[in-house]
């Protein structure tokens, strides 16, 4: 095996990939421009939407007999509610969004309140409409105040304070550090993202330099040169790994920038104190585990590319594998699933779980060792498989 030949093939593939607009789009434009725009856009529109709903004055219909004046006063004094007393087809209007909620005061409401009994109010709203949900919150807040006032009045009759029916107050305090919060958040998101980025980054290049070469007839030119089949496979595989890792790093950078920026969607979910608590050691460890996985993914894609007659055929073979990757990724981010035993031999799943453990600071060396060994073994087998396939004329000259 001649390392100069591997280097020459590798350099040729990298230069070819950089000069290919499609690779540039997948590797640079998508992660550095599209992802941030997507995340920032989602954050912006989500904020914009909720702000619009918050600023909207809710049209609320109140219906019933002998409505206590106190209730009416409360609602009338709320600026964000426009109280409507009589309206036709109110149920239809609630459905179409003309009104946001209906307060139905049950019969004998006032009498029951005065007699110290339980009265009923039916609040109708549309949970699928943001504005209706906002109206429901506003109404509930006012009715809660009204309810407490009635309770207070009833207790006063017996010279009792409100504390009498509130024997215990409970305060929950979250002790998780912002690093841990970040770690858990990243542990949830990153493993899935890393694997998808690795796969999508490798996909186009792997197909282009195998099935693409067959389609363009350049593979025969390579085969009659003095470079061995194994050198060709290794050079190509190294190029796919490089492109895939670069694409992943740029993708993570793009996503991180979006998440850390003020308008990002994470901001809305309460991650104002998003601090990156991942140490350099953790990052190095991630790469150590990632490497055999990238070799495996690249080799599988190269096998598919060599086998296929054309790029289109290769793409159709890759699609189910991509779906499988997404499926394994989804399993790995599902809450409550723990990895054990034979599951460590499932390539994508094992790495994803170990990534999650590292990101939340639960480093388990046995898991890391099993995962790395299993993935290295599979990567080796796939690499040998790719090299063997390159020797099969029935595959290379498949018509």
């Amino acid at each position, binding site marked *: 095996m001649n390392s100069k030949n591997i280097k020459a093939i590798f350099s*040729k593939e990298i230069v*070819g990939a950089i000069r*290919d607009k499609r690779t540039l789009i997948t590797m640079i434009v998508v992660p550095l421009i599209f992802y941030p725009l997507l995340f920032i856009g989602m954050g912006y529109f989500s904020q914009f939407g909720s702000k619009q709903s918050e600023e909207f004055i809710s049209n609320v219909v109140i219906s019933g007999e002998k409505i206590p004046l106190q209730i009416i006063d409360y609602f009338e004094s709320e600026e964000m509610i426009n109280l409507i007393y009589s309206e036709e087809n109110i149920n239809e209007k609630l459905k179409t969004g003309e009104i946001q909620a209906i307060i139905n005061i049950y019969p004998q409401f006032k009498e029951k309140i005065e007699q110290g009994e339980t009265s009923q109010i039916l609040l109708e709203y549309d949970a699928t409409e943001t504005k209706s949900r906002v109206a429901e919150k506003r109404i509930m807040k006012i009715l809660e105040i009204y309810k407490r006032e009635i309770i207070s009045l009833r207790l006063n009759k017996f010279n009792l304070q409100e504390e009498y029916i509130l024997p215990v107050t409970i305060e929950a305090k979250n002790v998780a550090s912002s690093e841990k919060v970040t770690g858990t958040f990243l542990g949830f998101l990153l493993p899935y993202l890393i694997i998808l980025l690795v796969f999508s980054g490798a996909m186009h290049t792997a197909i282009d330099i195998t099935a693409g070469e067959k389609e*363009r007839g350049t593979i025969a*030119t*390579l085969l*009659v*040169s*003095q470079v061995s089949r194994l050198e060709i496979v290794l050079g190509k595989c190294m190029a796919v790994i490089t492109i895939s890792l670069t694409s992943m790093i740029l993708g993570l950078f793009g996503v991180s920038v979006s998440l850390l920026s003020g308008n990002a969607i994470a901001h809305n979910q309460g991650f104002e104190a998003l601090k990156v608590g991942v140490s350099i050691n953790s990052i190095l460890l991630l790469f150590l585990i990632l490497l055999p996985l990238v070799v495996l993914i690249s080799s599988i894609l190269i096998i598919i590319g060599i086998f296929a007659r054309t790029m289109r055929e290769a793409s159709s073979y890759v699609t189910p594998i991509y779906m499988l990757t997404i499926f394994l990724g989804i399993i790995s981010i599902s809450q409550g699933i723990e990895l054990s035993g034979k599951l460590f031999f499932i390539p994508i799943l094992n790495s994803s779980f170990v990534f999650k453990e590292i990101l939340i600071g639960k480093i388990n060396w046995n898991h890391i060792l099993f995962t790395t060994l299993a993935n290295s073994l599979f990567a080796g087998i796939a690499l040998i498989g790719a090299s063997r396939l390159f020797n099969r*004329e029935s595959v290379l000259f498949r018509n």
Partner: protein
Amino acid sequence: MIKVNGLTKIFYDNKRGKVAAINNLNFHCQKGKIFGLLGPNGAGKTTTLRILATMMQPTCGTAEVNGIDVVNNPDEARKQIGFLSGETGLYDRFTPRETLKFFGKINGMENKIIDKKMSEIFQVLDMENFKDVRVGKLSTGMKQKLSIGRCILHDPTVLILDEPTVGLDIITARTVTEYVKKCKEQGKCVIYSTHIMSEAEKLCDDIGIIHRGKLLAIGTIKELQKHSSLKDLEEIFFDLIERSGAINE
């Protein structure tokens, strides 16, 4: 030189079962000679040349390039061979200069020698004007010149050329055939497959007429004329094809 003995390649086809693409071929070509492999499409020319170029393995029989067995020692055999065919494409995203540099490297050549050979090729094949233009933007003729350059870069002693003038305009086709003659003068051994009779007549010292995987006749043009009592190569070709068809049926 090239020696082919009993070369046979059998493919398995789902519909037809076992199919012999070439069947018991025997021929040889000395250095400084051009051996023409003449036959219609599907005759077995490309399969023969693919085996000689180590891209395929024969089912049985042997082929030697300068005494090196192409099956047992393909890496060494490839050092002796320059292969050009319709399927040896070029990289559109590279310039001719980059293409030749890449193939020089993977053929184990030193940078200085690559540069020297490149200059010679650019001059001889009149490529100076487009040596730094990406291949994707070149005409068919320019690409074929580059393919020839790629084929002869490592100074092979044996050239295997599979229909090198197909799809070329008359001027570029002439450049190619003139260059093949020059290679012959330099003492290279050339296997030249074609279905253009006039080309074979002008270029080849020996001709093998191949049809349905079998060599129907082999010899110099004079020998073929004498044997068939016909003057024109095209007539000889069709006569042989018809007779073989009659025999086969």
